């Protein structure tokens, strides 16, 4: 069963990567990042059951990852609101001041 879970996580990660790189709406980019973190969580939990040494450590790690992802989402939305106040848009292609 382990390769099935790993393949599903790979599919999720690639969908999230495409969304994070190709989407223009910054909120959707944040959601795609969450999707990629979820794929990693699925891998951790799958290995904690089907790995060579089954242990609860994978689940602990996934809880830590979820916590960091929650902090990242909160700070990301706050930065997004501040950017929206400054620029009046959430299009990620408009946030290019540091490139120019």
């Amino acid at each position: 069963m382990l390769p099935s879970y790993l393949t599903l996580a790979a599919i999720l990660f690639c969908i999230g990567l495409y969304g994070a790189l190709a989407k223009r709406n910054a909120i959707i980019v944040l959601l795609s990042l969450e999707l990629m973190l979820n794929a990693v969580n699925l891998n951790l939990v799958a290995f904690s059951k089907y790995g060579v040494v089954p242990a609860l450590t994978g689940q602990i790690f996934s809880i830590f990852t979820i916590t960091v992802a929650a902090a990242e989402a909160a700070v990301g939305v706050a930065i997004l609101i501040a950017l929206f106040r400054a620029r009046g848009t959430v299009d990620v292609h408009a946030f290019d001041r540091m490139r120019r």
Partner: protein
Amino acid sequence: MFNVDITGELVAFFAFAAIIIGGSVLMISLEKVVHMVISMAAAFLGLAGMYVLLDAEFVAFVQVLIYAGAVSILMIFGIMMTKHGGGDGQPARPLYEALVAVGALCLFGLFFYAIRTTEFPDAAPSAAVAEDNTMAIGELLFSGYIVPFELLSVLLTVAFIGAIALAKKGAD
């Protein structure tokens, strides 16, 4: 590989996998931003079901509370606070998007090749399945992982104070 017998776990796995992949593909392809967040919440709920399937009940509840609850609501609030002019708009750079899609597909091909060619040794089945998943995780969290736990609580506090300061600054 393909002559597996149909078990309950397999059926549940494919049902949850359909929910997860359908939700995430809809998230990529829908037009309105709120619909994207809702389909993403469906994918998060499917992942919670997948964790139940993997004997990780506590992680499943945390997933429902944090992702399907808090993160989705936070994103919807973010949508409410900002303005979205009718969907995602026209793709400005179709070549770029096609290149990104090809790159993601290549990465998936690499992952798939690596997964299929790796020999996964069979573990001693259900050696680690505790009777009370939540109690076992709690004991482990407060004995072996107490330092990362406290560091994470500090990180969460700093992140939320920072989020409040960032979002509040331009208001006045």
